[in-house]
């Protein structure tokens, strides 16, 4: 036990003392903060797109175009299309597009509508404009068929969607946007760090092998101790990095950012799309909800609260932070241990880095797949569906899949089961990896194949 501790110390210290470690530890939070500041500055600067409408049809379509969050319609300069176009090009502030209804435009032959803009009009913007035009023409048609405006208004459905989360996660609100962002963020962290530091383990092992220090080491310690010492030492490096980032990010966002953002209205950083998740501690029917109605909620999330200085951390208020941090650490460590054991076995089996490629493939594939599939199944699909369930149970995919599910809330029994399976998984994988490792580290100048590797597993000590 003493020896493995010595190995852990060496692996940890040699990496933490490197300049590159310090640089990354300092730079990453700065970059993150910088990006956040840039995004919020850009967001607060830009309002909805301004679209000028030139209507030569005589149908007054323009009057029926309703503004949305994304688009603000203004009448174009009266006159011919060419005049309107000239005015559009000179317009200040800039207008996003010029929408033109030509003279021949009619309700029965709705043709010839054009969007003029400098450069390409994004698909999203086109869709928004098309929706507004469709709605306007629909209204005009209904009016033509003799319906009163009042009736038309009544016919239009106004659905207000509220998703109620029935978990017992506390009486706080959160919103789907933050939850999804959190899920992305956490899972990509797990994915990246397993990858980056797993490869570091592999490098370290093959370095020891090509340095020829292996024989000296193995005559002092057991191969398993050497392997686990390296894996755990590097795990320590990652955790230190996380801790530094957390502290630095907290420092930057609570001390530096408010100074930089002092004059800006922190308005548009959060978009809820009107779908607000209400936690059960404030039951939907109780009068308390009326006081904190959805509109109020939105404001509460995004604007400074009394006695609570604005920080990006306030968006995390509604999330199950405790279980997210705990779960993240557990699944990161579990996944890292499982994958880095495999990386260590690869490093031991090959003589130099270039040979490692062929063995990297079967290790990286489940890692990459679990990330891609999880995004589709969990974030774009159903976070609690059967596929999501199985992905978060299989030890090879659960570190990423489960972390992705965490912000959405996961039943305790699933967490326990998946955690237990992950532990079983990494013990099993480590056992197999250690058997390959102990043979591989002393095997030089041999072209290693898969069948060779499988034979090593059954070698006697």
């Amino acid at each position, binding site marked *: 036990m003493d020896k493995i501790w010595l190995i852990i110390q060496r692996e940890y210290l040699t990496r933490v003392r490197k300049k590159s470690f310090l640089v990354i530890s300092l730079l990453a939070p700065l970059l993150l903060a910088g990006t956040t500041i840039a995004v919020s500055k850009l967001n607060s600067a830009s309002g909805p797109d301004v679209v000028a409408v030139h209507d030569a049809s005589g149908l007054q379509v323009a009057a029926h175009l309703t503004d949305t969050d994304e688009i603000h319609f203004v009448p174009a300069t009266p006159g011919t299309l060419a005049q309107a176009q000239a005015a559009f090009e000179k317009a200040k502030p800039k207008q996003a597009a010029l929408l033109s209804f030509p003279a021949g435009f009619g309700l029965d032959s709705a043709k010839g509508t054009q969007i003029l803009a400098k450069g390409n009009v994004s698909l999203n913007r086109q869709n928004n404009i098309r929706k507004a035009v469709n709605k306007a023409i629909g209204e005009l048609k209904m009016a033509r068929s003799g319906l009163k405006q009042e009736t038309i208004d009544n016919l239009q459905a106004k659905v207000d969607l509220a998703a109620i989360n029935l978990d017992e996660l506390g009486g706080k609100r959160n919103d789907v946007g933050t939850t999804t962002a959190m899920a992305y963020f956490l899972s990509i962290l797990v994915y990246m760090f397993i990858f980056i530091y797993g490869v570091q383990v592999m490098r370290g092992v093959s370095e020891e092998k090509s*340095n020829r220090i292996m024989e000296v080491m193995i*005559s002092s310690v057991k191969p398993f101790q050497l392997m686990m010492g390296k894996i755990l030492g590097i795990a320590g490096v990652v955790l230190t990095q996380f801790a530094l980032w957390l502290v630095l990010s907290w420092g930057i966002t609570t001390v530096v950012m408010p100074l930089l953002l002092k004059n800006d209205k922190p308005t548009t950083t959060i978009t809820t799309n009107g779908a607000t998740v209400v936690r059960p501690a404030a039951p939907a029917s109780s009068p308390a909800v009326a006081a904190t109605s959805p509109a109020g909620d939105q404001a509460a999330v995004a604007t400074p609260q009394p006695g609570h200085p604005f920080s990006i951390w306030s968006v995390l208020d509604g999330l199950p932070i405790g279980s997210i941090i705990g779960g993240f650490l557990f699944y990161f460590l579990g996944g890292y241990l499982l994958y880095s054991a495999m990386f260590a076995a690869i490093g031991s089996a090959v003589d130099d880095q270039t040979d490692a490629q062929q063995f990297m493939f079967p290790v990286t594939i489940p890692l990459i797949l679990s990330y891609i599939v999880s995004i589709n199944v969990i974030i774009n699909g159903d976070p609690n569906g059967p596929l999501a369930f199985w992905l978060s149970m299989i030890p090879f995919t659960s570190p990423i899949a489960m972390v992705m599910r965490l912000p959405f809330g996961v039943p305790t029994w699933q967490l326990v089961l998946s955690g237990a399976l992950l532990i079983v998984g990494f013990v099993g994988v480590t056992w197999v990896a250690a058997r390959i490792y102990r043979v591989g580290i002393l095997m030089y100048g041999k072209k290693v194949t898969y069948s060779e590797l499988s*034979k090593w597993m059954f070698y006697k000590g």
Partner: protein
Amino acid sequence: MQNPTSRPILEARDVRKHYAAHTALDGVSLAVPEGSIFGLLGPNGAGKTSLIRIITQITGADSGEILFRGAKLNPSHIGQIGYLPEERGLYKKMKVGEQLLYLAQLRGLPRADAVQRIKGWLDRLDLKAWAQKNVEDLSKGMQQKVQFVATVLHEPSLIILDEPFSGFDPINANLIKDEILRLRDQGATIIFSTHRMESVEELCDNIALINRSRKVLDGPVSQIKNQFKTNTYEVEGQGRLLVVHPDFEVLEQKERENDHFFARIQLHAGTTPNDLLRFLIGQVQVQAFRERIPSINEIFIQRVRETMPESLTEAVTA
């Protein structure tokens, strides 16, 4: 030469080791007397490294056993064994001092002791100025010295050196040789493993010859040499040597300028060197007369020729 104590520090009994394709050790038994320098000799691929890896507990034997001071070899003996592998290697990006400390601690030496001893060793081997340098900044010879220090820092009672002098220039090789003798005088036992038999012949008290995974010969060097003496004498002198005698046989005779000659003469059974000398004195002016002692290399080749003629070519070329 020291008097080796009778009790062996290390004993191998019928050790066998098979790898997938070949047999590395085929029933090797030997005993290393405590306080001696023991040569483990044989051509490349004979099985020396396999045996050493079993002694250093890097791998295990398929069958047979290794006894360390009479007890079955186990991990608690690691701290009493020092091992310098043939393939030298250190962590390149680690400082010399830290590296030595690390390796010594892994061998079970307490930190404070290790620090003390590292200072002493670096002083003695002229490496003091390099303690804070990364290993990769050192010359190859200096790296070798550092590795030697790492091998003996924990003051092991059994030191195993695989091809110890390869990679050293003559000056450093002598330095290391002196250190080895000093360690032996302090009571350590040293096992040399090499295929260059002449390089350690003079240092070894005992040897074991290994060929093709079998031990072909072992024992004290002096005894082996006596055993393989062919009763041959080398004579140099002046005059005209003509040997026609039933008791002596000339194996080789060379005439040189100015009436000088060199000859190798074998005595037949029952004849003493003095008989030969008397015969020579009557004929020529004797300038040198000495017994021809076979080198370990010659003995090895002869032994291999006797025991397994089919492997002769490989053994000789090795």
